[in-house]
């Protein structure tokens, strides 16, 4: 199969505000795909729909050949996700979090231990597996979440701002892990980030979303050529403007409505 992820005319409406306006794109198997956009552009809403957290108003999502809306469990088993916000059980140990994940993803009992060990070794947390997660630092928690997302051998890994709030050393090491996963296992990576330099360095393909529409996509070279700029950061600023965006997107009324949508979803 050529495309591990295929999105067709994806739309999400909240009340009378449309967060995502009929976007379509494909992610090639084995590639690293960066999904960029300013705050409130529809990025988070899109990733929530791709990972079956949020139901689209209309459109289609195909993951690993499964219709994510109709064959939800098959689609879910095909991807791993590292959410933007933490999602670990802090009252359990790292290892217990891994076991919990392995069980709910129906990893065969015989393989569990090996797979958990393998995943924890990749992110360098095997020696700390018996610690409670509440004793972990922010970077360790992130690495643990990445390891956890690997246990069920996903075909595609969604990373929603995986390096936000981390120091440069940790960020570097996380990207190294991610790159290795992509190169050695051929795992497709779908990521969002606000660090343009990181996207520039790692991504094969880039899509930029703003106001609910994809305004540019392709390889780094193509985007730079199309916009007549020298770096992704410049291209990004040229495409999306230099105004500072509100965290919830848009101004007064818009912000209020986005807030309602968020509350309903949560």
């Amino acid at each position, binding site marked *: 199969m050529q495309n591990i992820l295929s999105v067709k005319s994806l739309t999400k409406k909240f009340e009378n505000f449309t967060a995502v306006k009929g976007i379509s794109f494909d992610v090639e198997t084995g590639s690293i795909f960066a999904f960029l956009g300013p705050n409130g552009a529809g990025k988070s809403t899109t990733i929530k729909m791709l*990972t*079956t*957290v*949020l*139901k689209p108003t209309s459109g289609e999502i195909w993951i690993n050949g499964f219709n994510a809306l109709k064959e*939800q*469990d*098959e689609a*879910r*088993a095909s991807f791993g*996700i590292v*959410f933007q*916000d*933490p*999602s*670990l*059980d*802090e*009252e*359990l140990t790292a290892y*217990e979090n891994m*076991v*919990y*994940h392995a*069980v*709910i*993803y*129906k990893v065969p009992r015989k393989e569990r231990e090996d797979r958990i060990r393998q995943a924890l070794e990749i992110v360098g947390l095997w020696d700390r597996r018996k610690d409670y997660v509440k004793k972990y630092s922010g970077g360790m928690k992130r690495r643990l979440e990445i390891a956890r997302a690997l246990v069920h051998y996903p075909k595609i890994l969604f990373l929603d701002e995986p390096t936000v709030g981390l120091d440069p050393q940790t960020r570097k090491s996380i990207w190294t892990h991610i790159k290795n996963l992509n190169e050695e296992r051929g795992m497709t990576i779908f990521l969002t980030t606000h660090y343009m330099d990181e996207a520039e360095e790692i991504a094969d393909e880039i899509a930029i979303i703003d106001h609910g529409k994809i305004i540019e996509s392709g390889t780094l070279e193509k985007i730079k050529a199309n916009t007549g700029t020298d770096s992704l950061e410049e291209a990004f600023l040229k495409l999306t403007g230099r105004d500072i965006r509100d965290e919830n997107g848009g101004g007064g009324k818009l912000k209020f409505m986005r807030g309602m949508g968020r*509350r*309903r*979803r*949560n």
Partner: protein
Amino acid sequence: MIEVIYIRWLRQLKHYWRSKSRLIGSLGQPLLFMVAFGFGFGPMYTKASGGANYMDFLAPGIVSMSILFTAIFSGLEVIWDRQFGFLKETLVAPISRTEIMVGKTLGGATIAMIQGLIVLCLTYLLGFRVPGLESLALGLVFMLLIAIFFSGLGLAIASKMKDMQGFQLIMNFLIMPTFFLSGALFPLENLPPAIYFISRIDPLTYGVDGMRGALAGMSVFGVYSDFATLFTLSVLVCLIGAFLFSKVEA
């Protein structure tokens, strides 16, 4: 299927076992009620009833109370899971909502049962005696029903709540009235009509009455009718809970 339910159950038991302060703290309230009411109202009750022992009346009520609180809180724990993000991890997994819900309800019910058994042991120290193994077995059946009902109820409420802000509301307008008007502390006879009515629609009333019938041989409605009522309500609340939980979005 079974393993998913088991791991959900296990997680909850680990949480319970590891928070020793909560475990011990939650014994304080039933103990206080037993001492204050047991010794405070005991003599009055004995006089009014013509010689009966208030502790025999009170102990099943207090055991029911501790099960009520523990069960409903463990159902409400889902709200914490939501706030700390862990609920998302579970909701995007390729498993059914029913599995998630059943695991949680059984986990909550198990913890509530353990708590109820500890309180039952404490009542022994205050002079309450279970008549025999048969009564104990029947008492355990009622304890389990109360535990399942309120654990399911807690979960049903939690699937409609976004955060802990409505907690006081639920505590003061649902849990406390459920406890105080269930007949756990006083007999439900010669009450004003309004209170009488509320006590009759209070599910815990049938739990307390059944427990009292089983453990102390005093029952207003009869043990079988208590069992039938509580069993039906438990099935109903679990179905409603499963439905509401299936609508939850991460």
